[in-house]
C-alpha cells in the first residue's frame, strides 16, 4: 500500500529524514515511533502529498504522492495534531461540511459520531469539547469518506487513559474493517498494543524495525528470570535449563509471589539504541 525507499528531506541545512525505507502492506497498522522532532510529522506530510521530498522514492497506492489525483486522495483519512475544527460549529455541523464535500448524506453523521463515542454530542459546540472528545471528533472527520489509508499523527497525545482506550478501540475496529493505518506515536505501550509492524525513528534515521515483540526479543541481552518471593526477597536466575529445577522447586514450595522474564520494552530498546528517551523533548 505504501512504499518508501531511501527517502531524504531537508529544511535548509537541517536534514530531517535520512534514507528512510519501509513498506506497509494492506490492512496493516504501521507504527512510527520516535521522540518529538524525529521527523514523524514530516514523513506523514510527504506520504500525504503535503510536502515534497528531496530524494528517494515514495509510492502510495502505487503512485508518487504528488501525482495522486483528487479521487485517489479521497481514499485518505488524515488526523493530525495540528488540524483544527470549526470552533463555532457543533460536532454535527463540523462533520456536515465534510459530508457535503464527499457527497455523504447528513443522516449518516449521527452514526459516525456514535462510532467514535460522541453520541449525543451532535448539537454540542466544538469549542465546548474536552481534548479527548475533540480528538474523537477529528477521528470521525478522518473516517467520513471510509478511507483505505488512515494517517494518524499522535492521535492520543495528551489524552487521559479512558479517551486513549476509546481511540485504541476505534483504531482496531478500522483495522478489522480492512483499513491500512499509518500511526505515529511516542507512546510505546500504544505501539505494542496496536501495531503489526513498527519503525523506530531517531533524528530522521530508522534505528530499528520489525514486529514489536520481535524487536523486544532481539534486544533481550540479559535473558534472566526475576522472582519475588513471599518473604520479600528478589532473586534473578539465568534463563536456561540449568536453573529450571531451582525455579521449579521454589514454585512447588509455593514461595514465589511474582515471576517475570527480563525482555526489554520498546522504550528501553530505544534508549539502548539512541541514548534518548521516547518521551524526551528535543
Amino acid at each position, binding site marked *: 500500500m505504501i512504499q518508501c525507499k531511501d527517502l531524504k528531506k531537508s529544511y535548509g541545512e537541517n536534514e530531517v529524514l535520512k534514507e528512510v525505507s519501509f513498506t506497509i502492506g494492506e490492512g496493516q497498522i504501521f507504527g512510527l515511533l520516535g521522540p518529538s522532532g524525529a521527523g514523524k510529522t514530516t514523513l506523514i506530510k510527504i506520504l*500525504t502529498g*503535503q510536502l515534497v521530498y528531496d530524494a528517494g522514492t515514495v509510492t502510495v497506492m502505487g503512485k508518487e504522492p504528488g501525482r495522486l489525483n*483528487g*479521487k485517489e*486522495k*479521497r481514499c*485518505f483519512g*488524515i488526523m493530525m495534531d*495540528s*488540524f*483544527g*475544527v*470549526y*470552533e*463555532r*460549529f457543533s460536532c454535527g*455541523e463540523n462533520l456536515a*461540511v*465534510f459530508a*457535503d*464535500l*464527499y*457527497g455523504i448524506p447528513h443522516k449518516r453523521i449521527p452514526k459516525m459520531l456514535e462510532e467514535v463515542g460522541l453520541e449525543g454530542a451532535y448539537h454540542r459546540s466544538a469549542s465546548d469539547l474536552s481534548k479527548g472528545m475533540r480528538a474523537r471528533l477529528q477521528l470521525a*472527520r478522518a473516517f467520513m*469518506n471510509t478511507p483505505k489509508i488512515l494517517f494518524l499523527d499522535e492521535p492520543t497525545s495528551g489524552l487521559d487513559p479512558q479517551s486513549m482506550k476509546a481511540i485504541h478501540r476505534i483504531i482496531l475496529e478500522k483495522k478489522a474493517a480492512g483499513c491500512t493505518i499509518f500511526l505515529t506515536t511516542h507512546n510505546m505501550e500504544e505501539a505494542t498494543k496496536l501495531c503489526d509492524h513498527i519503525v523506530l525513528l531517531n533524528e530522521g534515521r530508522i534505528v530499528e524495525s520489525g514486529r514489536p515483540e520481535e524487536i523486544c526479543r532481539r534486544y533481550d541481552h540479559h535473558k534472566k528470570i526475576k522472582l519475588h518471593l513471599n518473604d520479600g526477597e528478589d532473586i534473578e536466575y539465568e534463563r536456561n535449563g540449568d536453573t529450571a529445577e531451582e525455579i521449579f522447586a521454589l514454585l512447588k514450595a509455593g514461595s514465589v509471589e511474582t515471576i517475570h522474564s527480563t525482555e526489554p520494552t520498546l522504550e528501553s530498546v530505544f534508549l539502548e539504541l539512541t541514548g534518548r528517551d521516547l518521551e524526551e523533548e528535543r
Partner: protein
Amino acid sequence: MHNIFVIMKKQFRDTLKNKTILVQFLMFPMLTLVMENAIHIKDMPEHFFVKLFAVMFIGMAPLTAATAILSEEKEKNTLRVLMMADMKPWQYLTGVGSYIWLICMAGAGVMASCIETSGRLFFLGMMGIGIAISIVAGACIGIFSKNQMMATSLQMPCMMIFSFAPMLAMFNEDIRRISDIFYTQQLKCVFDQMSLDGFGTNGAMIVCVNAVICVIMFAVAYRKKGLE
C-alpha cells in the same frame, strides 16, 4: 462548482454564529434604513445616508470579512483539512469571495431600497465593483497574515482609510485631496451624483488602478504564502 457551493454554505452557517462578521454585514444596511427614514433635515442632500453609508459599507464589511475568514482558517489549520479533502485553493477562494460578495450585495440591496427605482441598478452595479475590490484587498491581507492578530493589525488601518476617508473628506479639503486616490472616494463621488459623471476625469482610472493594485498584491501574497 460543488466544492465552491460547499464553502459558501459553510460560510453562511458560520456567519450566523460569528457575531463580529454578522454585525459588519448588518450594521450599515440597518443604519441606512433607520437614518433615511428617521432623519429629515432641511437642505440635507437627497439620500445623504445611503451615499455615506454605502461607501463605508464597501470599505469595511467585505474587507474585514475576507481578512477574518482567511486568517482564521489559516491559524486554526482548518484550511489544510479542506485542502486534504481535495478542495483546490481556487475553489476555496472563489467560494469565500462569492459568498462575501453575495451577502454584501444583499446588504446593498437593502440600502438600494431607500433610493428611487430608476437609480437602483446603477447603485448596485457600483456597489458590486467596490465590494469586489474590497474582497480582493481583504483576501490579500488574509493570505499574507500568519495569524488573526497580524491580520487585524494590518486590516484595521486599511479599513479605516477606505471607509472613513470619504466621510472626512467632506469636511476637510486636504483629506479630500489624499482621499481622491482611493476607490471608495471615487465611488462616493459617483453616488453623490448617481451617475458616472461623478467620476470626473480620472475617477474611473483611479478605481481601475486600485483594482489592479489589489489584484497584483493578491497575486504576490498568494505566490509568496499560498494558502498554507
